[in-house]
C-alpha cells in the first residue's frame, strides 16, 4: 500500500468517502489511480473467526479494522460447546493461562435418553484436569471479548455497533470485480485492499460476494440454550467434580422428541449451560417448538435434579449451518475471503475451533497477499487450498454419508435410544427367569423392533455423526 496516500487519507486530506459526497469527486484522481486506502484489511465480525484473522494480520503489521455489529464482541453469539485446547493453541500458545475460561472438562458422557431412564456412556480422565488440559467450558461473551482484545492489543482497531450492510466492489477488466471495502449501515464506505467475511451463520455478505451456496432447513440446526446460576459447590456435588473440574453431558432421544439432534448440559464455574438443538427441517415437519422441548428437557427427572434451585440467567437461541461438505462454498474471490460459520465450517461438534483455524488461515493468506501486493483470486485461493487440505475438511467430507443417512432415517436416534432403554430395563430388572432365557428374550425383542442390521447401522452412523459424543 502506498504509505503517502494512506497518510493523506488518515489526515483527512483528499476526499471523504461518505454517502453524501459526490461520486464524481473520486474522478479527481483519474480512473486508473489506486485509491488511497484506510486499511490493509477489514474483518467483518469479531467472533472467533474474525478476531483470529485480525490477530494474525495485526501481528504481521497489517493495518486492520475489525467490525462488530454487537455492543461488544460476543454480544450476539452463542455456542453449545467447549473451547478445544489443541486447535486454539495453533492461534495463541498456552492461551489457557490467560483466557477467561470456565472449567477444564474431565468428564464427557453421552446419554441415550427416554422418558424415565437413560443408558449412559462416558469417560472421566483426570489427566485432562491438569495443564495443558484438553478442552474447557466457556461463556462466549467473555471469551470473544478476550480474543478481540488480543487482536486489538496487536494493533487491530475494533469498532463495535458497526453493522456492515454491503461490500464495495471495484471493476477489474471488462466483467471482473474485486471487493475493495465495506459499506456501513449509515452509508459510510470504508476502503481496504481486502475484506475477510466472518459474519457468522447468516452469510448475507458472503452471498453478496458470491461465496455462499443455497441453504435449506435441512442444512440448519436450531439451538436454544439457558444459562442457569448455581453455586460452584452444588455443581461439584451434583456432577461429581472437584474445584476446577468440569463435565459435559450430551443426550439423544428424549430431549429432541426423537428427532435428530441433541440435548446437552455443561458445567461453568458458577452456572450451568443447558441446551437443546435439532435440525430445523425436523422441527418444521414434526411441528415442534424449541422452547417446549427445552421445558420438557428441564422437567426430565435426571435433569431436574441437576438444575434444582438454579436461577435462570439468560435465554439464547441460534442456528448452526450444518450443511456438510456439499454446502461448503468457494472460500475466496478477488479481494475477499470467508471464514467460520459464514463458510459453513462445522464438523460434528466442532465449530468454534474451526472458526479460529479458518480465521487464522485467512489471516495468514492475507499476510502473503499483502507482501506480494496482490489481492487477486490467484493468491487468495491459497486460503481455499489450506482449508480444503486441512484435517477438519476430511472430517466434514466423511460426514457426507451420515447426513444422507439421517435424511432417509430421521428416526434413527429415536429408535436407538428406545431400544437401548427397553433392553436395559429388561437386563437390569431382577426377575424369575434363567439368565440365558432373559438374554434370548432381549435379543428377540430388539430383532422385533427393527432388523439387527438396521440397529447396527443406526449405531454406526450415530458414532460417525456424534463423533466423540
Amino acid at each position, binding site marked *: 500500500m502506498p504509505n503517502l496516500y494512506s497518510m493523506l487519507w488518515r489526515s483527512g486530506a483528499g476526499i471523504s468517502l461518505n454517502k453524501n459526497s459526490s461520486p464524481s469527486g473520486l474522478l479527481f484522481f483519474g480512473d486508473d489511480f489506486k485509491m488511497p486506502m484506510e486499511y490493509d484489511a477489514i474483518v467483518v465480525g469479531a467472533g472467533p473467526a474474525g478476531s483470529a484473522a485480525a490477530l494474525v494480520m495485526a501481528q504481521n503489521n497489517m493495518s486492520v479494522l475489525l467490525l462488530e*455489529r*454487537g*455492543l461488544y464482541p*460476543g*454480544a*450476539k*453469539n*452463542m*455456542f453449545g460447546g467447549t473451547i478445544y485446547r489443541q486447535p486454539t493453541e495453533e492461534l495463541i500458545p498456552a492461551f489457557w493461562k490467560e483466557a477467561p475460561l470456565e472449567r477444564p472438562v474431565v468428564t464427557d458422557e453421552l446419554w441415550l435418553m427416554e422418558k424415565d431412564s437413560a443408558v449412559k456412556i462416558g469417560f472421566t480422565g483426570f489427566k485432562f484436569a491438569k495443564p495443558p488440559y484438553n478442552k474447557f467450558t466457556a*461463556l*462466549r*461473551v*467473555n*471469551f*470473544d471479548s478476550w480474543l478481540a482484545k488480543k487482536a486489538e492489543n496487536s494493533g487491530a482497531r475494533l469498532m*463495535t*455497533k*458497526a*453493522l456492515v450492510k454491503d461490500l464495495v466492489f471495484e471493476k477489474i477488466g471488462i466483467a471482473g470485480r474485486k471487493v475493495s471495502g465495506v459499506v456501513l*449501515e449509515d452509508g459510510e464506505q470504508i476502503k481496504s485492499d481486502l475484506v475477510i467475511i466472518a459474519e457468522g*451463520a*447468516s452469510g*448475507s455478505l458472503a452471498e453478496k460476494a458470491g461465496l455462499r451456496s443455497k*441453504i*435449506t*432447513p435441512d*442444512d*440448519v440446526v*436450531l439451538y*436454544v440454550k*439457558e*444459562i442457569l446460576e448455581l453455586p460452584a459447590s452444588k455443581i461439584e456435588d451434583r456432577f461429581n467434580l472437584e474445584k476446577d473440574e468440569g463435565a459435559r453431558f450430551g443426550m439423544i432421544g428424549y430431549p429432541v422428541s426423537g428427532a435428530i439432534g441433541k440435548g446437552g448440559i455443561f458445567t461453568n464455574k458458577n*452456572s450451568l449451560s443447558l441446551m437443546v438443538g435439532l435440525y*430445523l427441517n425436523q*422441527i*418444521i415437519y414434526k*411441528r*415442534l*417448538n*424449541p*422452547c*417446549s422441548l427445552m*421445558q420438557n428437557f428441564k422437567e426430565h427427572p435426571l435433569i431436574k435434579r441437576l438444575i434444582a434451585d438454579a436461577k*435462570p*440467567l*439468560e*435465554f*439464547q*437461541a*441460534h*442456528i448452526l449451518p450444518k450443511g456438510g461438505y456439499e454446502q461448503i462454498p468457494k472460500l475466496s474471490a478477488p479481494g475477499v475471503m470467508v471464514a467460520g460459520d459464514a463458510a459453513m465450517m462445522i464438523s460434528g461438534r466442532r465449530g468454534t475451533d474451526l472458526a479460529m483455524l479458518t480465521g487464522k488461515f485467512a489471516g495468514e493468506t492475507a499476510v502473503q497477499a499483502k507482501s506480494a501486493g496482490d489481492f487477486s483470486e490467484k493468491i487468495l485461493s491459497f486460503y481455499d487450498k489450506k482449508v480444503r487440505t486441512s484435517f477438519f475438511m476430511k472430517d466434514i467430507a466423511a460426514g457426507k454419508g451420515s447426513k444422507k443417512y439421517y435424511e432417509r432415517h430421521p428416526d434413527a436416534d429415536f429408535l436407538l435410544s428406545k431400544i437401548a432403554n427397553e433392553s436395559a430395563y429388561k437386563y437390569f430388572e431382577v426377575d424369575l427367569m434363567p439368565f440365558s432365557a432373559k438374554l434370548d428374550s432381549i435379543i428377540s425383542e430388539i430383532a422385533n423392533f427393527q432388523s439387527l442390521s438396521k440397529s447396527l447401522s443406526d449405531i454406526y452412523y450415530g458414532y460417525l455423526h456424534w463423533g466423540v459424543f
Partner: protein
Amino acid sequence: MNKLINTKKDPIDMVEIKVDGISHISIKNNKLCEKHCESRPCTYYCPTGVFHWDEKNRRIEVLYARCVECLACPFGCPSGNIDWHYPSGNAGVVYKYG
C-alpha cells in the same frame, strides 16, 4: 396460538433486547401466508414466538421486539417469505453470558 404461551416462563424475560424503532423483520407477501401456507411453521419454530397468525386480519403478525436474532426464520419459511435483516448496530439482543 404458539405453544410458548403455555410454558411457565417467557424466554424473553431472560434476555436483554434493545428494541429498535423499526422492524428488521417483515413478511414479503401476506397473501402467500393466507392462501398457500397451511401449517405456518414460523408460528411454532421461532424460539421466542415472533410470528403469530392474526385471524382477524388474516395475516402473520410480526413481534420483532421479541427477536433474539437466531436466524431460523429466513431459512425455515417454506416459501422464503420472511424478509429478515440484522437490526441496527445499536439495537437487538445483548447477551451477557453467551
